[in-house]
């Protein structure tokens, strides 16, 4: 792999998207919302895994969008899907059963056990900022076979304590998911614009395992609202290849 060059250096956001897309190289199916997760999944279909099945909570299974959709219900998703199902069927027969292998989720706050908040900043009754709310996240994170969290790295997002726990990642300890009846593996990675964090196999605490090009350990720890653990060996994310970056930019320009 040669680093991208033709179209200028990759931005941090581009690196994040490219890293997320690589995660889908061997996946059979991925559940995605809109924004960067959707971009990454479409990119994965373009460069790594043309057979990847995209599942959106609007009910489209096997959508093959040419454009990055603005909403999860854009017409192109319906028109290119292998099957379209109702929302009750989507959650009961598809999400809740673990049929979908990887789910990409975003959040406004992420804690050290990869639990997520997308409900409020501040007190629930009198919030400083009212966020959109749960959507499909709790059951997606509970039951898809594994979850990859996509978030922008800052102390605003990576907090020591969530203002509201919308979605269980690994709960309070490694036994929590089993105790709560959650069936998937839970979050296996958090991909940010700076780095990759993965849960420690024993404690499920998020640990820095890979740095994106040009990023140092100190920068990541400073952007994290708790004392971030660092793996004994920290990998270096291979920079986006020409092919990846060209495809990504082409996709976003469509």
């Amino acid at each position, binding site marked *: 792999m040669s680093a991208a060059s033709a179209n200028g250096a990759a931005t941090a956001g581009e690196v994040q998207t490219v890293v997320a897309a690589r995660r889908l190289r061997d996946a059979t199916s991925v559940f995605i919302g809109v924004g960067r997760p959707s971009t990454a999944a479409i990119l994965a279909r373009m460069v790594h895994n043309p057979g990847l099945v995209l599942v959106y909570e609007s009910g489209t299974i096997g959508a093959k969008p040419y454009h990055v959709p603005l909403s999860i219900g854009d017409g192109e998703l319906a028109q290119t899907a292998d099957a379209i199902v109702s929302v009750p069927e989507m959650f*009961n027969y598809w999400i809740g059963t673990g049929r979908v292998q990887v789910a990409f989720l975003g959040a406004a706050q992420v804690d050290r056990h990869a639990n997520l908040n997308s*409900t409020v900043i501040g007190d629930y009754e009198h919030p400083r900022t009212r966020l959109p709310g749960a*959507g499909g996240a709790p059951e997606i994170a509970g039951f898809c076979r594994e979850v990859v969290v996509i978030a922008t790295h800052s102390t605003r997002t990576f907090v020591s304590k969530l203002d509201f726990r919308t979605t269980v990642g690994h709960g309070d300890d490694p036994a929590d998911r089993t105790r709560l*009846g959650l069936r998937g593996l839970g979050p296996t990675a958090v991909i940010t614009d700076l780095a990759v964090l993965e849960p420690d196999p024993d404690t499920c605490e998020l640990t820095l395992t890979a740095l994106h090009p040009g990023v140092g350990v100190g920068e990541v720890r400073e952007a994290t609202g708790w004392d971030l653990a660092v793996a004994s060996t920290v990998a270096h994310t291979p920079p986006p290849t020409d092919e990846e970056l060209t495809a990504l930019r082409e996709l976003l320009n469509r």
Partner: protein
Amino acid sequence: MAELTSLPEAVAALVRDGDAVAMEGFTHLIPFAAGHEILRQGRGDLELIRMTPDILYDQMIGLGAARKLVFSYGGNPGVGGLHRFRDAVEHDWPRPIELEEHSHAGMANRYAAGAARMPCAIMRGYLGTDLAAIAPVAPMTCPFTGEQLIAVPALRPAVSVVHAQEADRAGNVQLWGIPGVQKEAVLAADRALVTVERIVDELTPRPGGVVIPGWVIDAVAEAPGGSRPSYSLGITDRDNEFYRFWDKLSRDRDEFTAWMREHVLDRARDAV
């Protein structure tokens, strides 16, 4: 049997002050024209039910029509937050709003239970989240395996409103594309109003077509373009630019109010 009528007549007959009103359409087929007619007729004190409030409920909340919101995702899909919804929750403007919030799976199962006239549905979820403390859910144990499950109460709107591509003259409705929870919303309600892009002599079965028989619908009203800025697959396109425009416009109370007056309240009906 569904009565074919005008949208103003249908709203006047079916939607009352204080009603629990579900207006569904999952990104696709959102019944904007019907919602705007409800606003024009000055209906208030509503309990608005919808998985994804979207711009339509942002408009209704911003004009003070809602006393309560039952929902699972209050964002502007792909764009950001809903500023009128936020302003109501954060600053009680133009009036305080009560929230009842769930996950999508919870809402979908609640509609399905309502459509089945069951008092509740069972599912996995909520456990371990703070949603479990604020949403009206209850633990339930599987009598066969002992597994702890969650029961969610059925949704039974007084009136449900959905938009579809077409209806025939007997009021049978067909929609296609993303079906969302519209059938469940109609079947869960005491009264149902469906707006359609067009009335046809006979419904031609379509791939992906969901048919709702006219005898479970109270009124069908023609409302061409009635889902804009959402869309009706095959007939209108989603106006993504409007969703972005709304993010800017709706940040300001006065600009919002002026826009709603000019484009919704002071018109006899929605421009198409």
